């Protein structure tokens, strides 16, 4: 049920931290991890189903449109590109 669109994406290696896992403490500091492997999606409309969070520091986080689990990646407002983390989604043959 995830939105991976078989071919059209190119794989891009981007080194970006600040991908948040489950929150456990109430402190301001976010729990982050560094993710390196992303699907680069040039046009957000390429997604079948996806949710966008409100903007935080020039980025919108991507979430599953159904269960709203996330972030599964992020959208960069300056470049309009979306980066979907390989690690955060399940790849299934259509």
């Amino acid at each position: 049920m995830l939105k991976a669109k078989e071919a059209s994406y190119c794989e891009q290696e981007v080194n970006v931290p600040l991908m948040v896992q489950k929150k456990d403490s109430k402190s301001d500091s976010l729990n982050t991890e560094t993710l390196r492997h992303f699907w680069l999606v040039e046009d957000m409309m390429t997604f079948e189903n996806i949710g966008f969070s409100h903007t935080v520091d020039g980025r919108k986080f991507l979430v599953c449109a159904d269960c709203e689990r996330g972030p599964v990646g992020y959208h960069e407002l300056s470049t309009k590109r979306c980066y979907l983390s390989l690690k955060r989604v399940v790849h299934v043959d259509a």
Partner: protein
Amino acid sequence: MAKTYDYLFKLLLIGDSGVGKTCILFRFSEDAFNTTFISTIGIDFKIRTIELDNKKIKLQIWDTAGQERFRTITTAYYRGAMGIMLVYDITQEKSFENIKNWIRNIEENAAADVEKMLLGNKCELNDKRQVSKERGEQLAIEYGIKFMETSAKASINVEEAFLTLASDIKAKTEKRMEANNPPKGGHQLKLTEIRTKDSWLSRCSLL
């Protein structure tokens, strides 16, 4: 890269606070697995893909993000909107009465030809009902728009409502495209003339 869809429609959800707009579009974040991070920053919009008559349609659906609490929604939010879901809560008379205010707000801010639809939400709460289905239907007739009772909670008619609105926008878009590219030998419709007059009057926000 080739476009993977035929149409792209921007839709808005409008209505009083608490009528369940957010529930229509978003699930509430009660789920145990939902990270606090996402529910804290909130969701801005969603992209949904539907298919109608073998055409792939992308819906970009926006919630008002609480702007409606100020009783008005800015022009910026309406920009580019092709469809609007007007939502009231069948258990709240006030939210139904306010629909006409929202329609006025739309007329002042949105494109004149924006497609509208009226939704009476929370229809699963029949025992608390304050607005009869007939009154909803009547109001919709008055404004010449479609009407449905929905329940975001029980997933009644929500998808149908979006499909209906999308289908109406599609029909309108195709009609316009046809008018702009008339079949050979066809009579050229003076669509621009009509439309200018239309949007001219109802779009001036100073009036």
